[in-house]
Each structure stands twice: as C-alpha cells, then as structure tokens.
C-alpha cells in the first residue's frame, strides 16, 4: 500500500476498528451439518459422470484446437462461419431457436450493457470468457441513453477499466484497442479498430482467439444481432488482427471453441440483466449451454422448477454450445429472478429483470 500520511493513519485505525466491531457483532450460525448433507447429496455416479464430461470436453477441445491450427496453417479463419451458424441454429436438433436469439441483447429498454471479458479459471488454469451486465450509468464515464452504437460498443469493450484485470496472469490483448467506428447493415457488422494489428507482446493463439471471440460476442450482443457476422477495418491499414486473423473475414459468433471458453456452463442471454420487459405477455428466455446431458431446468422467483425442452442430449461427440429457449407465462409487474440449472444442480445461472 502507499505510505499513508498521519491523518490517513488515523483513518485506517478507525476503519479497522469499525469493520472489526461490525463483523464481530454477528455470530455465524452452525451450518456444518447442512453443508455436509449438501455435499453428500452429490452422488458418486454423478461425480463420475461429470469427470467423464470434463474429459470428453477436453478431448473435444484438443480435436478442435488441432483442426483450428490446421485451418490457420492453411490460411483460413479458425472460425468457420457456416459451422457456427449450423451449431447455433441446429443444436438441439429440430429446435427453431435462431442464432439471433442467442445473444445478450441490450437493445431493449432499460437493459444493461452486456460485457464479455477474459478471466482465468482457477481450477483448470484456463483462459476463459465471462460475461456480466453493466448499467450504462455505472460506466466511467457514464454512457448517455442516446449514445451512438460506436460509443456503446466501445464502452462495452473498454470495461473493466484498463489495467483492472491486468496482472495475475490475465492477458490484455485489447488494452490498446480503440473503436473508431461501427457500421451495421442488414447482414454485416463492420467495426473500425485501432491498436490491434500488432502482436509485440507475443500473445499466444489461445489468448488472441479469446480476444477475437470477446469482440465478436460483445458487438453482436450490444446490437442484439447474433445472427449476422462481424468484420473489421483496421485504422492503420493493417490487414490482420494481432497478425493472425484476416480483418476482412466475416466472423460469426464462435461455436466449437466456445465450450472450452465459457467460464459458466450456462449463459442466459435473454432477458438481459436488468432488462425491462413488457407486462401481459409471455417472456421468451434464451441462452447457450455447454451442458451435455441435455437436461436443464428453470425457475422464476420461488415458483416450482420446470424442465427446459431442449430436445435431449447433444449428439454424440458434439461437445458444442447448445442453444436453448423456452417461454415463461406472463408475470406480474415488478422485479423477478430467473434461474436456469443443470439436472444435478451443480451449475446454476441467474438473471434479474423487471416486468412493467
């Protein structure tokens, strides 16, 4: 810590005493029995199945990485637009969920800005993508309600503030990135970027791949257009991002690498966190999951859990993100909590929204 001045030393002493007294004023309850019971409810068979899933996903990732490397060596983009579209729109088989629905769209009134960022999984030492939602007023500086598309995407990609996630092994390939402009047509998002053409820091392929996914996912989500690809115009006339990915290529929402990249096995894309949805109408919930059992359950507030009709387990060997979607009957006005979990309750995601 910085060496405090005398008045700050007094403040530190007072702060320490106040926090200590406040914390000591509570007596934590005894939950050892409850904790043990909950731990015991995790049956060995399920645990083994989970291990098998992890191993299978790892194996699939190796295969995907190998294919991606081969693709790059051949001068082709690692992300195959056609494969992405098929993955998101056809899994589960027979689903009519479109890739467009699978976004953390923020275009709705009152929705927070969806933000994807790099994080590190402490359990597996993997670089992954996590997502959160940031209220425009909470950004520094706050984002105006009538901010341009360029400003919205730039703000989402600049969060958290530069340097906050630096260090501790989390790379920052977008630290010097600037968004110079965004153009959206009916079938393409074009983003002008600066500061990403070189790779002086020597970011490895996993890092730059995640960063590319971060940009594509964020842009699509901010615009609510997961159904159209993203391409780039680099400010300095360069032709490749980080010397690896052709700027003029059309990048869809990533598919195969995303399973390994997802920090959370279940993403709830819609409704967006903090979104206001109209009263009197059923609510369509959609998202993406890396859960391969094919069984998801949802709950609103304290109502009973209901199973999501996902169409069953993913096809053999298809360790891909699976789009899911279901309808929630019209809810009363007010704030609500929505949770989606796996059958074994090991993974749960939640979001909050307001009906009015």
């Amino acid at each position, binding site marked *: 810590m910085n060496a405090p001045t005398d008045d700050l030393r007094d403040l*530190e002493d007072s702060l320490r005493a106040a926090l200590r007294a406040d914390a000591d004023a509570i007596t*934590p309850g005894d939950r050892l029995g409850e904790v043990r019971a909950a731990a015991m409810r995790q049956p060995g068979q399920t645990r083994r199945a989970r291990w098998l899933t992890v191993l299978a996903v790892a194996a699939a990732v190796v295969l995907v990485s190998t294919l991606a490397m081969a693709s790059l060596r051949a001068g082709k983009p690692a992300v195959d637009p056609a494969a992405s579209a098929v993955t998101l729109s056809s899994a589960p088989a027979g689903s009519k969920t479109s890739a467009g629905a699978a976004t953390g769209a923020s275009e709705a009134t009152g929705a927070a800005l969806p933000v994807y960022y790099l994080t590190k999984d402490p359990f597996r030492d993997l670089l992954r993508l996590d997502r959160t939602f940031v209220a425009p007023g909470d950004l520094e500086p706050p984002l105006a309600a009538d901010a341009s598309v360029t400003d919205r995407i730039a703000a989402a990609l600049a969060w958290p503030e530069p*340097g906050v996630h630096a260090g*501790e092994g989390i790379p920052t390939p977008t630290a010097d990135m600037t968004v110079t402009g965004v153009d959206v047509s009916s079938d393409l998002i074009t983003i002008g970027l600066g500061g990403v053409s070189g790779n002086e820091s020597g970011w490895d392929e996993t890092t730059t791949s995640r960063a590319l996914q971060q940009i594509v996912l964020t842009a699509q989500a901010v615009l609510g257009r997961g159904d159209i690809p993203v391409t780039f115009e680099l400010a300095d006339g360069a032709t490749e991002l980080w010397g690896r990915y052709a700027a003029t290529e059309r990048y869809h929402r990533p598919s195969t690498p995303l399973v390994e990249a997802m920090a959370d096995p279940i993403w709830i894309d819609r409704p967006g966190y903090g979104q206001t949805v109209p009263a009197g109408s059923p609510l369509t919930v959609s998202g993406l999951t890396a859960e391969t059992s094919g069984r998801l359950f949802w709950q609103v507030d304290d109502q009973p859990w209901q199973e999501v009709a996902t169409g069953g387990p993913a096809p053999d060997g298809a360790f891909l993100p699976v789009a899911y979607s279901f309808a929630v009957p019209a809810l009363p006005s007010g704030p609500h909590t929505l949770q989606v979990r796996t059958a074994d309750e090991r993974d749960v995601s939640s979001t909050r929204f307001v009906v009015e």
Partner: protein
Amino acid sequence: MGADEALAALYAAQWAPMVRLAWLLVRDQGVAEDVVQDALLGIHRRWGQLADKEQAVGYLRRSVVNACRSVQRHRKVESDYLAKAGPAGRDAATASAEELALRQVGNAAMLAAVERLPRRQREVLILRYYADLSEAQIAETLQISPGSVKAHAHRGLLALRDLVTDPRPSREDTP
C-alpha cells in the same frame, strides 16, 4: 486429502471469518451464510480439479467475494425498480435503511461511508482492513493487479476521509 476432509477442514477454519467477510460486503447474515455455504460446496465439488490445493483458502475467498458481488448486482436491479415504483417502493427501501441505521452509533458514520464507496474501493478496503490481506492476496482475490490494489486503496481512503467529514444521503454502486 480428499474432498470431504478438505470440506471439513475448510469449514472449521474458515466458516466464521468468511461469513463475517461476506456480512461486511452484503450486510445480511442469512445471505452471507448462504454465500459461504455455496462457496464451500463449490470447492468440494471441484476439489479434484483444483490445480493447487494449497490455494484452497484463496479460491474460497475469491468465490465468496464474487458471490457477494452478484448479490449486490441483484439488489441493484431491485432497488432501481423500487426507486421507480413510487411510494410503496420507497417505503420498502426506507425500512431497509432503517435497519442499517441500527448499527452501533460509534462506528455508524465510518460504516455508512464505506457503504457509499464504489464497489472496487469498498472491496479492497474491507479485504485490507478487516481481513488483513496483503496487497498480493487482495490482487489474487479480486483478480486485479497489485498496482490497481494500491490505487483503489489510496483512492478509497481519500474518498472515505471526505465522506466521513461530509456525509451525503446515498451511494452510487458499481457492478
């Protein structure tokens, strides 16, 4: 050490301090206990995958802080709605504020000021001055750089000094 033994050991050593840490962050004992229970079960669930089991306490602390942050985000959505919802909403918010006002009078101003700090500064100060963590440990817990810890701590103390001497009625949170 197996997962069950690790769970028992972590509970014995960390339950009370982690609940108290969570309490400082979320101001609700029941929620604080839920958060720590979930974090313990998360460690138990993934024990076999934990790359460095010596770091279990660090992972537990990080899980607790992250979960508290999620709780705070949830509350913000609700409080935003209540703020817009008119008199009934304001009554509910007032009741909650009154509960907070029952804190010890001697430390009330300091604690109220801490509550009003931006989230990151609040987390850094609580981890530093309650949990007595080092700069490196705070950086690890919050997944930020040691330089950011320094900056947030210094800014937080300066802001705290101003707030204690010039209190205002409400705090703007950050996610």
